[in-house]
């Protein structure tokens, strides 16, 4: 508390001469020229929001057009697929099954082997 009061009391304790010294201090200092180039370069790598807003309107229209073409093509393919007449599913195992049945009819031993294999 006493420290705080001490600081408050000395809040502006420069003498007029000292204040003149402070007022005479230069407020500006010219930085080296290269600093500007470095800083501009560094700042260019930023600003994603501005970069987005800078996108050309032609590019935006082209992207929208491409998206529309892809959408229409997808819709068309989906429509064609939906309206095609349904075909009965082809049974790929049928010929094999017929061959096995024929072989069993010819030789009962094959039937035994089949059971052995299957069980």
């Amino acid at each position, binding site marked *: 508390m006493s*420290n*705080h009061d*001490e*600081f*408050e009391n*000395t*809040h502006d*304790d*420069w003498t007029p001469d*000292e204040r003149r*010294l*402070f007022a005479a*201090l*230069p*407020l*500006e*200092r*010219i*930085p*080296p020229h290269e*600093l*500007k180039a*470095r*800083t*501009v370069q*560094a*700042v*260019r790598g*930023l*600003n994603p*929001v*501005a*970069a987005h*807003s*800078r996108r050309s309107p032609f590019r935006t229209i082209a992207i929208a057009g491409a998206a529309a073409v892809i959408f229409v093509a997808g819709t068309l393919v989906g429509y064609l697929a939906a309206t095609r007449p349904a075909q009965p599913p082809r049974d790929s195992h049928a010929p094999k099954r017929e061959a096995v049945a024929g072989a069993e009819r010819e030789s009962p031993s094959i039937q035994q082997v089949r059971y052995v294999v299957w069980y």
Partner: protein
Amino acid sequence: MGKPLNHSRSDVDLVSAVQNDRSDDAFSVLYDRHTPRAFQTAWRIVGGNSQLAEDAVQEAWIRAVASLAVWSRSDGFGAWLRGITAHVAVDLMRRELRLTFTDDVDVAVPEHDVEHLDLESAIAALAPGYRAVLVLHDIEGFTHEEIAKQLGITAGTSKGQLFKARRAVRARLSTNIAESQSVESRRI
């Protein structure tokens, strides 16, 4: 982007151009307008180390441009930038001290400057924390509350450091005056 920029355009216009059009020209005008003062602030806070001051200013601009959206237009752009610069400069100074310095009071004063101690070198001779507060308060005109926010300390700490900084500067200045008077009397 294409049209030439009028250098009398306000900071608000220039900031909008940087933000919305990513205008290099607008940034260039802003840079030329505010960097010399920010550089001086950084240079003083880091105790006259030009390389550190340059790094501080560059980093301050990067941070400022990245957060242009949060700049309150009621505050001056220059003061806002200097606040960021001061913050960055203190951070750099802290990092630098941790790496190289053990005694933080007189390290910033080169030996040959001690004989020609003026206010500038008396400020440079302060410990970094004191120096930052003194520069921000007595030269840049920030309040203790603003300094507290920029440096991550309390307003009370800022006041305490300013008190000690002023005392140290005054002691150095009076030593210098006494020394120069004795040199003068010896010459006579």
